[in-house]
């Protein structure tokens, strides 16, 4: 069991490794969505970064038809089709099915989803955001691409062990706003923890594969592609935090990937900037900054 959970530990960050999807986004950069469900869902879709992992861009796959290979030491995961296709996608899922999958990591047939899908973060999404997201996904062209079975070897392929992991590391459901904090802070926390799932890469993991809450956003020595992921707490030490970045530095980084010394983010964060943070409104980027400012420094 311990080995399995360690496996999960190593597998999760790898979920973000690999190539990138360049399909055009539905929104112009920085636009606030209209108030209908599909438009709101498009914004949620960007903020949650669904496109990258669910598209086999390098292999020329259709957007969201899945098949992106996530290579891990335990085998290779292939992300599933999340288009409206009734057979291979999510076209037949009820609203309750969709909420259960994203919030609890359980498929409509009752099987547990591997935590390569970051539902431990997405679980905090509100009902409305989840349903808007579903409405948006179903508004996009369906692709009949069949799901590729994961190429895992036992015991990592044993789905029946996943609920144990969930019991240890999943606290299902949204987190209530903190009334002692301004709305921007609460919005920022939601963007960082629920939608952006930042901690999935920026926090280290325990030996059992859960996020190490004592080292929240303190950096991860083993991130995607085995890269070292920098900390983003208030620490002023280089690579440990953003304490010496100005608000303007942070906002510009989220918008354009540009660091204070003129470098431009690449790798997994480059993809995040391209697919997610550059597509948020300036207010939402400012909310992220407001929230990150209050994350206690960890050296």
């Amino acid at each position: 069991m311990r080995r399995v959970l360690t496996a999960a530990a190593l597998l999760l960050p790898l979920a973000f490794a690999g190539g990138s999807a360049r399909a055009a986004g539905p929104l112009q950069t920085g636009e606030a969505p209209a108030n209908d469900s599909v438009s709101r869902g498009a914004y949620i879709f960007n903020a949650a970064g669904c496109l990258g992992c669910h598209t086999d861009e390098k292999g020329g796959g259709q957007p969201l038809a899945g098949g992106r290979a996530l290579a891990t030491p335990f085998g290779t995961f292939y992300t599933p089709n999340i288009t409206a296709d009734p057979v291979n996608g999510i076209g037949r899922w009820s609203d309750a099915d969709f909420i259960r999958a994203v919030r609890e990591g359980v498929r409509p047939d009752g099987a547990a989803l591997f935590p390569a899908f970051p539902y431990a973060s997405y679980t905090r999404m509100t009902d409305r955001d989840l349903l808007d997201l579903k409405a948006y996904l179903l508004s996009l062209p369906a692709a009949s691409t069949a799901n590729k079975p994961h190429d895992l070897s036992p015991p990592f392929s044993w789905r029946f062990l996943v609920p144990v992991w969930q019991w240890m590391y999943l606290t299902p459901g949204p987190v209530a706003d903190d009334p002692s904090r301004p709305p921007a802070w609460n919005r920022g926390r939601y963007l960082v923890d629920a939608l952006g799932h930042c901690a999935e890469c920026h926090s280290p993991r325990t030996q059992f594969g859960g996020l190490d809450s004592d080292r929240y956003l303190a950096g991860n020595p083993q991130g995607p592609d085995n890269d070292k992921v920098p900390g983003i707490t208030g620490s002023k030490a280089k690579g440990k935090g953003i304490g010496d970045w100005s608000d303007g530095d942070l906002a510009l980084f989220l918008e354009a990937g540009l660091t204070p010394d003129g470098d431009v983010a690449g790798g997994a964060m480059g993809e995040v900037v391209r697919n997610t943070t550059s597509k948020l409104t300036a207010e939402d980027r400012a909310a992220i900054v407001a929230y990150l400012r209050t994350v206690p420094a960890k050296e």
Partner: protein
Amino acid sequence: MSNRVVNVLAAASVAGLMFTLFGMSAGAAGAADPAEQVKDRQQTMKKLGGGMGAVAKFVKNEGATAEDAAKGAEAVLAVSKMDVKKIFPEGTAVGVADSAAKPELWKNWAETQKYWSAVQPAAEKLDAAIKTGDRAQIAQALGATSKTCGSCHEDFRVKKN
């Protein structure tokens, strides 16, 4: 213009052309030290980053003057006009000195060229935006330029640990 002047000019341009050709072939055939080439690339990227950083400082209103920003944009434009083959000569992938360039950069050379050729038009727009002095316009052009940097960094740069 007298014939004589024309002749002199023609001779000079032929000489210049020969020099250029000779110089180029010498550069290509010369046994350049890959470690040196990596170092040169890092200097080039530093110049590029320094330019971007100066414009960013101006955009953020954090101490850089309009003149600093103009100089920064000039540096970015100058680098963008360089030949990508010279910046990324073969044999300088990760493993050579502290190179951070993935071998895929050369394997997908057409992609690399496409990425690189997007930098100059963006840098020209950035340069033009700076001349307007309009901070919002500059910010937008800066974002567009950094996007062109990011595409290559995302696909072909090894993250340094």
